[in-house]
């Protein structure tokens, strides 16, 4: 069944990238029809607060949603919520929805984001084992927020640690289990890992590294403990699992679009099909600054690709090529990250992470700045963002020297 309406731009997924694309399409002067199809019940919202202020109950959904629902009507954008796209027919230029509609498109944007990686161990389906990706997940987790309750967080990545910080502030006993020998092992230098372990332990969070979860124990269908395989059981009332995400690429694969660790796009967000574009967590894109392809999970990536895709669908070139950046809020610490540290040959510390709550670690590759982790240090973050884009070769001694202003570090 076709809706019988004129074809326009269709966007699959109603998240961060999709919302930006709607705003940018109108800003670029597109006057045709836009149909936004998302499988969640809510209009597009921001996910970062889900493990921060929204989880803490400090802000309501009205401050998490990206635009009020009325905006979409005002922008002449049909918002089809609680609706899943089941298939794309690239030859016929239609998408099929799970409720049996066939919607024609002139141009299609895939902005399906990613989903959580599930833990595949016995007891995975016990009540009280949660993940964190959506507003609904937050409500489920919050239902356990009673002082004295015991939480085990599986995975010491950003989301796990942010959840630990919020839960601890709510009077919950928190244990974080991490497979690697340190938290944040995938993304930061040991100096930064050690710092966060120190902060969390000081707050009363138990952190156990080198622990691989092999199962969950339960009673009456509810989780009561986490089994680490070496005979040790960590008792709990609830669990939050944060062990990574998987990009939602199945629709693209089935439509014959090239996928390789994400939907393969160029710097203009174009896929291998001339009428189909992709933006956000689901993509794999080239980055000229780092001279390689990336699959990123960040708001910046979703927003910037959303803008580029809107332009590209209008036939305009607005290449996406930026220094990636990200942030994480834990307790009163703001971590700001710019660049990509993989392959660094030297880490330079500015400040005293062993004792203070502010410092920065610069990552150099053969003398060239490629990334920074800055904790409560906006100057180091902001300046590094510029220097990374310039492939600046920096003197490690100057970077480490606190008496030299960040604006001056690049000077010989």
């Amino acid at each position, binding site marked *: 069944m076709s809706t019988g309406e004129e074809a326009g731009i269709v966007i699959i997924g109603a998240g961060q990238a999709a919302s930006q694309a709607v705003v940018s399409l109108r800003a670029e002067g597109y006057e045709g029809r836009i149909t936004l199809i998302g499988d969640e019940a809510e209009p597009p919202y921001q996910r970062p607060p889900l493990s921060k202020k929204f989880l803490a109950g400090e802000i309501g959904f009205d401050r998490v949603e990206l*635009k009020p629902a009325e905006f979409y009507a005002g922008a002449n954008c049909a918002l089809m919520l609680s609706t899943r796209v089941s298939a794309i027919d690239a030859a016929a230029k239609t998408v099929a929805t799970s409720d049996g509609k066939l919607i024609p498109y002139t141009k299609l944007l895939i902005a399906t984001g990613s989903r959580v990686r599930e833990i595949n161990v016995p007891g995975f389906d016990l009540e009280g084992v949660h993940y964190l990706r959506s507003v609904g997940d937050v409500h489920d987790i919050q239902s356990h927020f009673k002082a004295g309750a015991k939480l085990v967080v599986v995975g010491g990545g950003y989301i796990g640690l942010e959840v630990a910080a919020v839960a601890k502030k709510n009077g919950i006993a928190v244990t974080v289990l991490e497979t690697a020998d340190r938290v944040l092992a995938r993304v930061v230098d040991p100096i930064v890992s050690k710092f966060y372990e120190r902060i969390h332990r000081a707050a009363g969070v138990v952190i156990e590294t080198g622990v691989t979860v092999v199962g969950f124990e339960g009673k009456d269908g509810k989780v009561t403990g986490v089994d680490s395989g070496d005979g040790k059981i960590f008792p709990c009332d609830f669990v939050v699992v944060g062990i990574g995400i998987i990009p939602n690429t199945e629709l693209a694969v089935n439509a014959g679009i090239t996928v390789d660790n994400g939907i393969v796009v160029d710097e203009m967000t174009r896929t291998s099909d001339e009428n189909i574009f992709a933006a956000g967590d689901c993509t794999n894109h080239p980055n000229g600054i780092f001279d390689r392809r990336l699959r990123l999970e960040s708001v*910046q990536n979703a927003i910037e690709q959303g803008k580029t895709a809107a332009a590209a669908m209008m036939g305009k070139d607005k290449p996406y090529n930026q220094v990636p950046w990200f942030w994480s809020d834990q307790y009163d610490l703001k971590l700001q990250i710019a660049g990509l540290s993989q392959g660094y040959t030297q880490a330079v510390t500015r400040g005293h992470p062993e004792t203070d709550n502010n410092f920065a670690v610069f990552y150099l590759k053969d003398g060239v700045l490629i990334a920074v982790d800055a904790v409560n240090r906006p100057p180091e973050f902001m300046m590094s963002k510029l220097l990374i884009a310039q492939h600046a070769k920096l003197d490690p001694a100057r970077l480490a020297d606190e008496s030299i202003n960040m604006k001056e570090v690049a000077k010989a």
Partner: protein
Amino acid sequence: MTKVTFIEHNGKEHTLDVADGLTLMEAATKALIPGIDADCGGACACATCMVFVPAEWESKLAAKEPMEETMLEFCEHSAENSRLSCQIKVSPALEGIRVTMPESQH
């Protein structure tokens, strides 16, 4: 409700009635006023919500926290009278305030 005017770099004015307690950034982005990007959604992490505040209003705003202060210091288009709009809560004391946006936030 408090009356707030946002002025685009090209001079175009937008006057809004804003619920007290929202930030200037939230008011502008929800009303789709061009010129404020607010990539981090108000986490004081991105400096893409910068506005210029006329001198006569400065004293009526809460002072900058150190985080905002240093973000601004390193923000490309910032000036003496720059503020991050996500750090400014709207209250009746701001009735009639007029803020100007930079040409670009990036």
